[in-house]
């Protein structure tokens, strides 16, 4: 009886949590304590890969899917007729500990629908993580969702216990929120985000001075937004992300393609999630964080959405052909990073290798730089290897995957169902170019 019930709860409450994309367990250096269990791994560890190819790192569950809110895009909305369940904090603890001891997981990602009210929900969440940390001396990774509208005192207590926290921004604009999640307030989302941001920063400073100072959300805060449930443009989305990174000291913004869950007329009628668009946003996000790009450079009011057929960096480069081709033996590191197809690793390799002798095209191959896209934008010892005239239209034709020579109107359809080639797909979660 007990097992059957637990299996059923786990099935309901993990199914409800799986659309939360983050499964990252990185960024924390929490150490084990004497007589304790677990530690965090700075770069994160994947423990399995599910049938959709995503990494499984954390036990990702909801405490409950009973919800008093009615957000149109969400399966758990109160008006939806689905099986409901709740874990007790004790059950969450038992599952986490026993999965961890068997090395199934790196830790826990605990989230929840709104049960009764935000404070009641937050209290239960905090009780579970407190039990893990204090009673069970558990030092594995914990990612906890902060419930918008809960008392800051509760959220702050949670912050002293967990590695990462997230408040989901849900939709890219406040109009979208009003339309689709009328019970949620923008302020209730932004306020804890901003408090978390400043507290994290303060704590980081403090820990530089006193190494023993207790930690506060050491792996930083993240957030998630749904793409394609509203009419917001890509430009609007990446500008929002840029702001979140800058002002709230955000570690990661996750994008989740809207999965059609209802026929509510306020929602777009699509049959499959806009995965290609989500993918382009991850790539653009990567450009913002690691490649020194600004949202304004990538998109503009006259060009507000990414092309689905071309990655954002190639798109940008084609619109700035005057900056290319760059000479690999001379271009500085930051310029190399702007070459389509050259990522952080390749740029570093080039800079390291050219200290010994000047590189020709073969050398680039040898040190492992992938030239499929890069060849059109570089010269090696002054020679161009693109083998086509250096013109936007010609190069573009080479960059767009063959099977996708579609009429130009496909660009306009945000919800195109074509899929990105497998090679590209692998970067879906990281977005690395």
């Amino acid at each position, binding site marked *: 009886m007990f097992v059957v019930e637990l299996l059923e709860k*786990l099935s309901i409450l993990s199914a409800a949590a799986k659309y939360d994309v983050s499964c990252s367990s990185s960024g924390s250096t929490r150490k084990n304590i004497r007589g304790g*269990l677990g530690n965090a791994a700075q770069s994160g560890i994947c*423990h399995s*890969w*599910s049938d959709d190819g*995503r990494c499984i790192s954390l036990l990702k569950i909801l405490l409950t899917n009973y919800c008093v809110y009615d957000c149109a895009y969400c399966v758990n909305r109160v008006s939806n007729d689905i099986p409901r369940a709740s874990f007790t904090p004790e059950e969450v603890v038992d599952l986490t500990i026993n999965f961890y001891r068997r090395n199934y997981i790196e830790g826990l990602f605990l989230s929840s629908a709104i049960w009764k009210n935000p404070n009641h929900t937050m209290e239960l969440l905090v009780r579970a993580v407190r039990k893990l940390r204090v009673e069970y001396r558990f030092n594995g990774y914990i990612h906890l969702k902060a419930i918008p509208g809960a008392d800051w005192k509760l959220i702050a207590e949670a912050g002293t216990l967990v590695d990462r926290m997230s408040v989901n921004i849900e939709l890219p604009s406040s109009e979208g929120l009003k339309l689709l999640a009328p019970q949620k307030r923008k302020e209730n989302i932004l306020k804890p985000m901003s408090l978390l941001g400043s507290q994290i920063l303060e704590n980081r400073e403090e820990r530089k001075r006193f190494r023993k100072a207790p930690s506060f959300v050491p792996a930083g805060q993240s957030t998630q937004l749904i793409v394609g449930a509203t009419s917001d443009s890509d430009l609007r989305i990446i500008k929002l992300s840029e702001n979140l990174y800058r002002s709230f000291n955000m570690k990661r913004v996750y994008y989740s393609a809207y999965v059609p869950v209802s026929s509510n007329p306020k929602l777009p009628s699509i049959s499959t999630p806009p*995965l290609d668009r989500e993918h382009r946003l991850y790539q653009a996000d990567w450009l913002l964080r690691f490649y020194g790009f600004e949202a304004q450079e990538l998109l503009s009011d006259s060009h507000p959405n990414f092309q689905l057929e071309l990655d954002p960096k190639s798109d940008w480069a084609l619109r700035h052909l005057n900056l290319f081709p760059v000479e690999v033996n001379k271009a500085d590191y930051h310029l190399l990073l702007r070459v389509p197809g050259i990522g952080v690793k390749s740029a570093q390799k080039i800079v390291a290798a050219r200290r010994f002798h000047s590189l020709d095209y073969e050398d680039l191959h040898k040190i492992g730089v992938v030239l499929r896209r890069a060849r059109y934008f570089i010269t090696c010892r002054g020679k161009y290897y693109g083998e086509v005239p250096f013109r936007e239209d010609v190069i573009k034709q080479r960059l767009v995957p063959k099977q996708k020579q579609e009429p130009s109107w496909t660009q306009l359809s945000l919800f195109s169902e074509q899929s990105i080639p497998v090679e590209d797909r692998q970067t879906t979660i990281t977005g690395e170019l």
Partner: protein
Amino acid sequence: MIYYLYDGTFEGLLTAIYEAYYRREKPAFIMRAEEYEANLFSRPVIIITDSEKSDKVYRSIEDKISRQALRHVYYAYLSDIKGVATLIYRYLQLGWQVGAELDSQLFREPVREMLAIYQRVSKERHRMLGLLRFCKLTGEIYFATCEPDHNIVGLVAPHFARRLADQNWVIYDQKRGLAAVYNQREWFITNLNLSGQLLYEENEKIYQQLWKQYFAGTAIQDRLNPKLQRQFMPVRYWQHLDEKN
């Protein structure tokens, strides 16, 4: 052609490299004695492991080349890849010529090959940190079985000694018949050949079942991508993954 044959230990390998440096007769190949197959053109030389000589080589790699190079040599040794001892020899010959710069000279073949092997071993080590599955046996022992491509049990043990510090555990390499054993204080490597069934603790099956179900449930059905899954988690590891067998 001269073959140096060593006993399979790391000290033995380093001794062989010492001899290769000082003896007049340079080897064309260095390999484990058990790998050697006699033929008309080969002349085997048995190397006797000598800890003084191997220490000298060890320190010389560290001082004259780099700590990093030493790490590469050790990982390559653990790779169990055929012909790797000869490659290590060539890599070190080059290393003693160019010194600390060795690993940045990617245009040299032995360096490239060594780094590639190092990466393969590190990759498997890292994978194994996630993919090992412990099951709880009667008598409070957590037991993990694996069959890694490379000899990495000793490379993953320190991680689990820190992480699963308050439980007894065994990491068993079924392919090589050895195991890392931890008793809540320290870990060590020992030979182990198991036959017969493991005796599970009474709740073990329940947690395995919960995990299997959790695993199956996390996949988003619209996004199934078995190819990608296999790329991250090659099928040869599935046998020891509760969720996949």
